[in-house]
């Protein structure tokens, strides 16, 4: 396992980089073959390595006008739990399809769109750049949204379903009255959303207020306000529940709260709205 990991580029600040690796643009990269790798599990490392730099060394020396740019592409983040861990709320079949097929497809298409964007930008092709925005928003949004979604879910034995404590709990009581009100509001809005989209609990980081919003298709929460930071997102696309709940989206929304983990949301809220 450590041998395989040595193929990945790992920025390790403590290493002496002057000797071996050439300076590639502004990225000083180093091959890591050491014990640092073997001490981390492969899954944890793969979540660290959610960005892979296409080897700039592979590219031939282009003209100085272009410089040496490396395109950062994305890869599928691992779940912190097994596919079947959220049963019976969300079936293992749905989790596997959702993660390995849908999310992966968004990432693949996002990378493709990014490559096409880079090509269009280097050629100065303005209309192509604009034409790609739809694909970028859809697939990039899909990747961003689903990455948040996986962190919002946790098996019951790891805290899924436990109500939020700390400053987020207080903020919910202040802004919505009670957790039950918030949950029923989000479930209602999610059920009323026509077609595909997401329902969000976000925080306006300037006004320090919690908001409930919905977005269509794969639009990220920022499309509803540049100051909004997503805390909890619930996927109400049919692929998220159809195999198990059929067309009864309200049942899915009622049950999903049993596996929503408020830990990620609390930590992020405390970061955005620190208690003085």
């Amino acid at each position, binding site marked *: 396992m450590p041998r395989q990991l040595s193929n990945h580029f790992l920025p390790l600040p403590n290493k002496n980089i002057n000797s071996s690796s050439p300076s590639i643009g502004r990225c000083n990269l180093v091959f890591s073959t050491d014990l640092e790798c073997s001490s981390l599990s492969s899954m944890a490392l793969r979540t660290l390595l959610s960005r892979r730099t296409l080897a700039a060394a592979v590219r031939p020396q282009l003209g100085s006008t272009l410089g040496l740019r490396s395109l950062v592409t994305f890869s599928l983040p691992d779940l912190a739990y097994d596919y079947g861990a959220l049963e019976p709320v969300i079936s293992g079949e749905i989790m596997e399809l959702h993660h390995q*097929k849908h999310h992966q497809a968004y990432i693949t298409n996002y990378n493709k769109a990014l490559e096409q964007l880079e090509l269009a930008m280097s050629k100065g092709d303005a209309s192509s750049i604009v034409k790609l925005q739809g694909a970028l928003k859809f697939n990039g949004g899909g990747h961003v949204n689903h990455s948040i979604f996986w962190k919002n879910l946790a098996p019951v034995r790891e805290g899924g379903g436990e109500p939020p404590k700390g400053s987020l709990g207080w903020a919910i009581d202040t802004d919505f009255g009670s957790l039950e009100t918030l949950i029923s509001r989000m479930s209602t809005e999610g059920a009323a959303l026509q*077609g595909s989209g997401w329902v969000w609990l976000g925080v306006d980081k300037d006004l320090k207020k919690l908001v409930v919003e919905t977005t269509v298709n794969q639009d990220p929460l920022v499309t509803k306000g540049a100051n909004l930071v997503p805390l909890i997102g619930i996927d109400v696309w049919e692929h998220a529940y159809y195999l198990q709940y059929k067309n009864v989206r309200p049942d899915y929304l009622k049950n999903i709260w049993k596996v929503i983990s408020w830990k990620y949301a609390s930590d992020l809220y405390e970061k955005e709205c620190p208690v003085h």
Partner: protein
Amino acid sequence: MGSTCFHTSAAPSSCLLSSTKRSYGLHDLKLKVPISRTRKVSKVLAFYGLRSPPYKLDALEPHMSNRTLEMHWGELHRGYVEGLNKQLERNDILYGYTMDELIKATYNNGNPFPEFNNAAQVWNHNFFWDSMHPRGGNMPTLGLLDQIEKDFGSFTNFKEKFVDAALSLFGSGWVWLVLRKREKRLEVVKTCNAINPIVWDDIPIINLDMWEHAYYFDYKNDRAAYVKNFLDHLVSWDVATARIIRAEAFVNLGEPKIPIA
């Protein structure tokens, strides 16, 4: 008023069932005539009925399973009809419309009323079941094929465009082969959610449901296989031909080729 009230969950046709003779045009939308308050009538319980597909629910196997149709028609389509009827119970302004008129009225030029989603989805699904046939697929013939070749170059080109439109649709929606009234030509269009080309006065010829519920049981996320199977095995070109023949009464597609002498 003598309205007949009967529950119509399995009615044979999806046209208006209320026996009122008044017809509300679009200009009547401003009138709020509270029919229920002017005279004592028995409340009309249903306005539109659920029409069955022209084939048994398992007839489209293996391309569209019995399970999908049971859910898609039996639960979802039925749900749209019942939802629409419930909404219309509360709103007597929208009384007396045919389905087409109801869709155009509730679309409200791009700012749709809540009834639009249900009305349009009822219409779209009726159209969809009719657009398919157990022995469908193959190629269109005669005039329809000529028109497709004239507007797309070749039938293969049309299929490519149709598949592209279906696969590039973001989110939920429908893909249509539509006869554009103004441009007087066939085009492939994709629409979001429940939107229907009749709101733009165009005439649909066939459609394909690209909402995930239409294919998820059978194909999971493999949309390409779903669209391909629809075009190769399910689409009913006979029905499409009948539709374009009817459309020629409204759109002048050119002079007929009558041989001279």
